[in-house]
């Protein structure tokens, strides 16, 4: 059971961000959000919503990506049975991994790590300090010694489960399968 009110709320947010009323979002629409432009990795988060060739984001994709951030619910047994679910621990870590791995080759190279560090620290630290931090992080995480961090190595480093974003109501967030079946019906009822 999914809260229609919650989806309606998200759709209002989608409509609000879509200022030209096109029915889909573009990267420029995200750049209008002031708090996001203040965020050091704001650009990367925006890129996470848009796969490399696509410049448009429709509502189901928008919700699908936000679904990663739903906190893992009380029915743990169900979640364990579906590890591919968007908001599982693996799903959340994959999202974070892809923030580093911009070229999507499945590994975080030293250069990619450096880029993220530069974004998060800016001019506050020197280039040598940045390099030493990156070097140390890669050394500690790299188990197979190939000089880059794969997703499995990344998972091992992050032992604690990343927190999700709690929705205001104690209802379930959305699941991808539900979206596919109910999307049509729902859009008609709100137009």
């Amino acid at each position, binding site marked *: 059971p999914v*809260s*229609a*009110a*919650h989806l309606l*709320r*998200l759709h209002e*947010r989608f409509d*609000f*961000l879509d200022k030209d009323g096109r029915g889909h979002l573009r990267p420029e629409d*995200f750049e209008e*959000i*002031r*708090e*996001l*432009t*203040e*965020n*050091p*990795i*704001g650009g990367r*988060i925006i890129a996470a919503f848009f796969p490399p060739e696509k410049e448009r984001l429709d509502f189901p994709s928008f919700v699908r990506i*936000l679904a990663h*951030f739903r906190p893992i619910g009380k029915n743990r047994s169900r979640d364990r049975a579906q590890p591919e679910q968007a908001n599982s621990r693996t799903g*959340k870590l994959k*999202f*974070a991994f892809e*923030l*580093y791995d911009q070229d999507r080759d499945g590994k975080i190279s030293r250069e990619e790590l450096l880029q*993220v*560090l530069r974004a*998060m*620290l*800016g*001019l*506050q*630290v020197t280039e040598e*300090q940045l390099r030493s*931090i*990156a070097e*140390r*992080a890669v050394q*500690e*995480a790299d188990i197979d010694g190939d000089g880059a*961090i794969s997703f499995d190595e*990344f998972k091992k*480093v*992050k*032992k*604690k489960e*990343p*927190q999700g*974003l*709690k*929705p*205001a*109501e104690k209802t379930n967030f959305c699941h991808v399968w539900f979206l596919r079946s109910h999307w049509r019906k729902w859009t008609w009822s709100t137009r």
Partner: protein
Amino acid sequence: MLQFAQSACNLLCRCLGITFVVWFTILFVIIIVPAVLEVSLGIHRFYIRTLCRVFEWATLQMELSAKQKNRQFSKPHTKGILAKSKPLSVQENMQELRSSAHSRRSEPQFDMGDVIYFCRKGVESIMDDEVTKSFSAQELESWNLLTRSIRRFPHRGLRLTFLWGLGVLIRYGILLPLRVLLAVTGIFLFVILSTSVGFLPNSKLRFFLGEKVHLMGYRFCVKSLTAFITYHNSENRPKNGSICVANHTTPLDVIILANDRCYSLVGQVHRGLLGMIQRAMVKSSPHIWFERAEVKDRHLVAKRLCDHAADKTKQPILIFPEGTCVNNTSVMMFKKGSFEIGCTIFPVAIKYDFRFGDAYWNSSKFGLVHHLLRIMSSWGLVCSVWYLPPMNREEGEDAVQFAKRVKAALAAQAGLADLTWDGGLKRTKVKDIFKEEQQRLYSEILLRDHQTQKQEKCFEDGTPEED
């Protein structure tokens, strides 16, 4: 057949004539005369109480009809889509993310998962952000029978729709023409009286009469908007020779405040009707109107304000330090200009009850005339005004800190959120300075960890590290 039509016509004309006379008499006796003479008839309390009861009944009806149709009646989230957690500092957030199971030795200086903190903040802002919430109209918990808020309340039913239709008739058929007529009469009377007072030779008499005329003009405006204002703590009302600051929701804030005592206004010279009103105002009481070119010269502005404030017989200057209209759920950053002058500041907090009509002027959506029409066609403007005790700049406090202190007191009194965002963000992009602040905070955590680890290593090895 013709005779029948003629007699019907006569009857209609007579009815209309009688209605018009009755209506005008009521208008004159109940509204115009009390406005001129400063007498209150107590009708407004009855009106507000009745409306409140109607709104509560309407919400109950919606819940019942929703239950009947077996649908969930969900109240719109007025607090946003995300659950509010205790606001933690950057350090505390990082601590939470990093595993506490790691011992201090093996804890990495930089955790790969640190990016998750920024990622989470970023996605939170995508779903809901404070700045946007402050610049769009407030959301209602129960329907107030206005067409404009109809979209959020789909379960209406027949009785409510009928009530809504009745409401539309009353608001657009009776209230709106009445209000427009009152506004026109008020402005007309004010311009004439103010100009004539300006011709008086005796300055003391002119000042006294000028105040009376101004107050009458504002009372007319208040009645024309059907504004019901409650003034709290009137002993803290601003005194002559000081500056009064208030939060800004709509240009009508001026009318709300000036209904109680006269202020000197600060603003740009306009053309047309507004320009005429401005010129009439200046004739009977001192206001500070700037030419468009002068506004850019900050020193000139500051000097004129200083001169005016230094004269202790002059009325207090009314300034809105936010610089733009905000939607009355929060207070944005106060610009430091008026806090640098150095005289006593009287903060005033204004809070509107938005059930009766949304007072926020979204200047990117409507022009001024449209905004006025919206207010005049809603149920009314109910607001509370709190006068706060006067504040002075303390030793060792600069203008920015003083402004923050005043803002915090104001926000606390009116129950508004105290935000540090600049109101100018409505129109411009965020400056890089905020991003650098975030970067600085994060770097402090890392470097502090780095230092502690270096020290530990130093004690371990027993050799001094070179920095």
